[in-house]
């Protein structure tokens, strides 16, 4: 069953909390991974792999660079989840 937008944001918040130690409530749609959430380029790869597994979606490396904000990632997952 496909995840809702709310479920995806909550899931990403848990992943970012695990990887970067940012409180889950700070992980909002408009937040930039690198500028606001302490996720550098290497940690972003970890976020993507964890999100792929959690939401059963494939995010090719070429698409990762377009995922600047939590909203970008949420929209991508919403569109591409199987």
């Amino acid at each position, binding site marked *: 069953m496909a995840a809702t937008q709310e479920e995806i944001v909550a899931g990403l918040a848990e992943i970012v909390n695990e*990887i*970067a*130690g940012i409180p889950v409530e700070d992980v909002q749609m408009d937040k930039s991974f690198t500028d606001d959430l*302490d996720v550098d380029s*290497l*940690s972003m*790869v*970890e976020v993507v*792999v964890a999100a*792929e597994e959690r939401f059963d979606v494939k995010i090719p490396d070429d698409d990762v660079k377009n995922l600047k904000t939590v909203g970008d990632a949420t929209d991508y997952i919403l569109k591409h989840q199987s």
Partner: protein
Amino acid sequence: MSSTNRTVVVTGIGATTPLGGDVASTWEGLIAGRSGVGPLEQDWAAEMPVRIAAQIAVEPGKIIPRPQARRLDRSAQFALIATQEAWKDAGFTAKAGEDGSVDPDRLGAVIASGIGGVTTLLDQYDVLRDKGVRRVSPHTVPMLMPNGPSANVGLYVNARAGVHTPVSACASGAEAIGYGIEMIRTGRADVVVAGGTEAAIHPLPIAAFGNMMAMSKNNDDPQGASRPFDVDRNGFVLGEGAGVVVLESQEHARARGAAIYAEAVGQGISADGHDIVQPEPEGNGIAHALQNLLQNTDVRPSEIVHANAHATSTPAGDIAELKALRKVFGDETDHIAVASTKSMTGHLLGGAGGIESVATILALKNRLAPPTINITTLDPEAGVADIIRDKPRPLPQGPITAINDSFGFGGHNVVLAFRLDG
């Protein structure tokens, strides 16, 4: 600033070891003659020929926040914890450049390990094999590279004069401190954070060292297994942890009013040219390093009162070292009180030179040398030197010097000398 023969002093020390999570608890353990060795209770240990080790007393995960820890190999975590203590102990309250106490361009870092990020390498190989390519951590390379601990320490203190990682197996930590002394002596830096770290308690290194017949298999008596100079010694006990010192030019330390532990007088280095793992049995390579120490520095045998021996509790190595002392120092060997703190900490490989330099510096400062424990029957061949047994030994008043020996597979020999004035 361009002087090439400056006096170097120690202004800070830090450690996390099998005896304690800091310098004070480690020193208390050393003086009490406490063993840090215990049984390995991990599931994988059951099938190992060796089921004992000197594991860290305070897990680094209790100190380093999880998001930071997940991108640091365990050896880098130990190095950072020891550095934090040493940096603060030296009186620095912020990164270089933030409070004016040290210029980042004049600050170096030299942290070594014998094996590097071996647990990261092996754990990530397990991930690759069991979970697939995609799951291999993107942090793997900076975690497993041998210069990882040095680079992370360099970032922590903001060292920009140079960050280095000499690798010489179990002599690595001592070689790092020697390298740091040279950086300051020759004018490349005013302050250097230097030391050694190791985190290799994992089934592969234990199986490999075990199959070399290098490790004690006294699984039924963990605390008595590391017994340097005892007639029944049968190999080393693997330890883990880190020891770090802050080295500083005497003029820089005086200018900022820093407390000085001891002078880091210098080093003697040599290579055996004998065998890839066996020590040269007569101690000729070690003697060469001791002679180089006397040649390169103003250390005189008459002032040496203590040696923190490399002695790992192997049948051949322990005696070769004592023979070398007698060969070079002759009758002056009689006033050198020799201890192997590995009897308590186990053998930290590349971390050994770090924590044993800390122990040597504290022995001078407290004028009290730690003992060698577990000598039930002294090897008659160890009679060529004065071995401190069971209880710590007070050291004389006045200016005194102590040496710290470290030797590594490959035939690497490093001797460091520290001196306490008046």
